[in-house]
């Protein structure tokens, strides 16, 4: 999970990293802060500045309209639900520091540069990055940092060493996947301050990371996917509020592929979903939850369910689907159920006996054809 900048900076401040003073606001009227300041959209993607998500607020009178404008944005599919108001930092040198995994070699990669900023991805900037890999331990990472410092301008070395001393233990303690400080402002007096902060943490470690868990539980609307996964153990991502196809699918890869193929065919999936039938354990509540969500899509005109029962049993699944449909009467859209694998014949019999008019296909291509045709038909009709 990518932490929002505000929460990343709170985490940094706890371990003694200097960050500009800032507050999180979700409502333009509640903004009590010292002006001038910077208002920054809190979304887990880059390019916020270019999207108009980072603006200066000069006076208290400007605050409300500017914050409202930012809160009204959607940046790379992420609706802006919160804004960080942050104190200005004096003009200073912009350096770069990051810690990440090198997944290939199983090492920690440390990157530093005397010049950071928004163009760090450009080939010219990347060419200037100093980098070193270290065994995945704190000591090895600290030692590796020392090998890079002599290549930095002397005025930056103390600040960068200090950054490493703060960030490396944090990386291990919070089980981070990435910590990136860009820009890392180097102040005239040799001090430093984290201008922006990107921290990616490991969702799989949440069971033993109470602090990160608490953050998600406190801000479920800011981390909707992580909150869902934490509370209910499955994945559901709203992709397109105007989507016409609701998906009730299992398996991350197959579900992603279905989303891709439906888009290629000119339709708009409302959601991504990996419902994990293995976790049902005879309880329809996950299905009920997902059906409620897809039924709530204002433009959803057709539902596609896909279950490939390689290791599960369709005869156990179908009764749960029937119970769930009964519990969500507001779902009126036509449903195509693609199922194949273990227990198919028994599952068909259960469906037939129920009298439910749900349409069954065993072939995925035919099921997608049918679901898209249903969407088109209801749009025309």
């Amino acid at each position: 999970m990518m932490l929002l900048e505000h929460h990343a900076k709170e985490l940094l401040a706890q371990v003694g990293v200097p960050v500009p003073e800032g507050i999180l606001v979700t409502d333009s009227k509640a903004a009590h802060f010292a002006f001038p300041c910077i208002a920054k959209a809190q979304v887990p993607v880059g390019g916020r500045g270019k999207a108009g998500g980072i603006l200066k607020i000069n006076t208290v009178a400007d605050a409300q309209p500017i914050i409202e404008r930012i809160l009204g944005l959607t940046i790379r599919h992420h609706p802006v639900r919160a804004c960080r108001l942050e104190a200005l930092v004096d003009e200073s040198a912009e350096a770069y520091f990051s810690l990440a995994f090198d997944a290939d070699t199983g090492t920690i990669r440390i990157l530093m540069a005397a010049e950071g900023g928004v163009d760090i991805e450009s080939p010219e900037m990347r060419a200037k990055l100093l980098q070193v890999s270290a065994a995945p331990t704190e000591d090895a990472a600290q030692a590796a940092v020392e090998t890079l410092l002599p290549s930095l301008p002397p005025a930056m070395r103390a600040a960068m060493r200090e950054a490493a001393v703060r960030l490396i233990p944090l990386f291990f303690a919070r089980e981070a996947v990435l910590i990136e400080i860009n820009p890392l402002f180097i102040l005239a007096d040799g001090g430093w301050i984290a201008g922006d902060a990107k921290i990616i943490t490991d969702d799989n470690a949440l069971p033993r990371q109470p602090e990160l868990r608490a953050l998600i539980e406190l801000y479920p609307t800011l981390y909707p996917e992580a909150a869902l996964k934490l509370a209910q153990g499955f994945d559901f991502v709203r992709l397109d509020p105007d989507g016409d196809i609701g998906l009730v699918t299992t398996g991350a890869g197959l579900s992603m592929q279905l989303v891709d193929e439906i888009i290629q065919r000119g339709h708009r999936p409302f959601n991504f979903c990996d419902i994990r039938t293995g976790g049902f354990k005879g309880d329809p509540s996950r299905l009920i939850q997902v059906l409620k969500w897809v039924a709530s899509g204002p433009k959803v005109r057709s539902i596609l369910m896909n279950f490939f029962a390689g290791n599960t049993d369709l005869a156990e699944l179908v009764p749960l689907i029937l119970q769930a449909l009964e519990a969500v009467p507001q779902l009126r859209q036509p449903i195509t159920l693609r199922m194949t694998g273990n227990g198919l014949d028994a599952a068909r019999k259960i469906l037939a006996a129920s009298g439910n008019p749900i349409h069954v296909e065993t072939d995925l291509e035919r099921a997608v054809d049918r679901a898209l045709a249903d969407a088109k038909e209801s749009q025309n009709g």
Partner: protein
Amino acid sequence: MADAFLAHDIPVLVQGATGRSGRSQTAQMVAYGTNIVAGVSRRDDPEVKIPLFKTCAEAVRETGAKASVVFVPPLDVLAAINEAIEAGIELIVTVAEGMPVHDALKAKTATREAGVRWVGASTPGLAIPGKMKMGFLPNVSLSPGGLGVMSKSGTLSYEVCYRLVERGFGQTLWVGVGGDSVKGTRFADVIPFFAADPATTGIVIVGEIGGSEEEELADALIASRCTKPVFALLAGRSALEGVTMGHAGALISANIGTIETKTAALRKVGAQVLPSIKALVEAVSTTLAP
């Protein structure tokens, strides 16, 4: 050839052989023909039909097991891997979903230092169809044949192989490498086996966004002078930036691991990157004889 990656009759023990999932999966692996010689569990389970031992070391000593498939909860996987290494196991397959990435990093270091092959963190396992499987690749998708298959995604590979099998195309060896970012065996690690194996006539890659494995795989094809046809499906073209799409590894950030970079790298070395499952099945059917 599959034997170059693992011997089809390699003696296998199951860590976490008791309990609902371990028990039923063990029975299914035995039924498929896997040479399961032992189970390891702290507790007894009268319903488990194979010899049970309290520790890996004991199981290895008594049965000569050389491989382990691990069915323990995600936070216990690292300890299980360390125990298997200590006991002298040569191949470890871990299937639990949700192993923390810092644990995976420790496991990667430990297995590499010990010279142990690790397939994981989270994978449906591997199979030499018709002979053995470690893990739970579904039987309906398995059939002996000429395709070397590697997959990041369980479900998508089940669907792809199911449809290929319907068209008469089975597999020599299928390795689920898993959707984690830090993993034991990466796509590129398996290429030399497929390249060298005379029975493998084509290679199917079920990849997805995130990481750089597909890009490395392209380099590995060149390095191993592999001229066999390669068919790739890459899921996640429309994934949202900044959101984990089910798999921990499927997170796009800052233009690394996008469909565009992967497609370009694979096409450059002559691989076919197909836009849909149907297109992949058609491409295999028109390029290879069943």
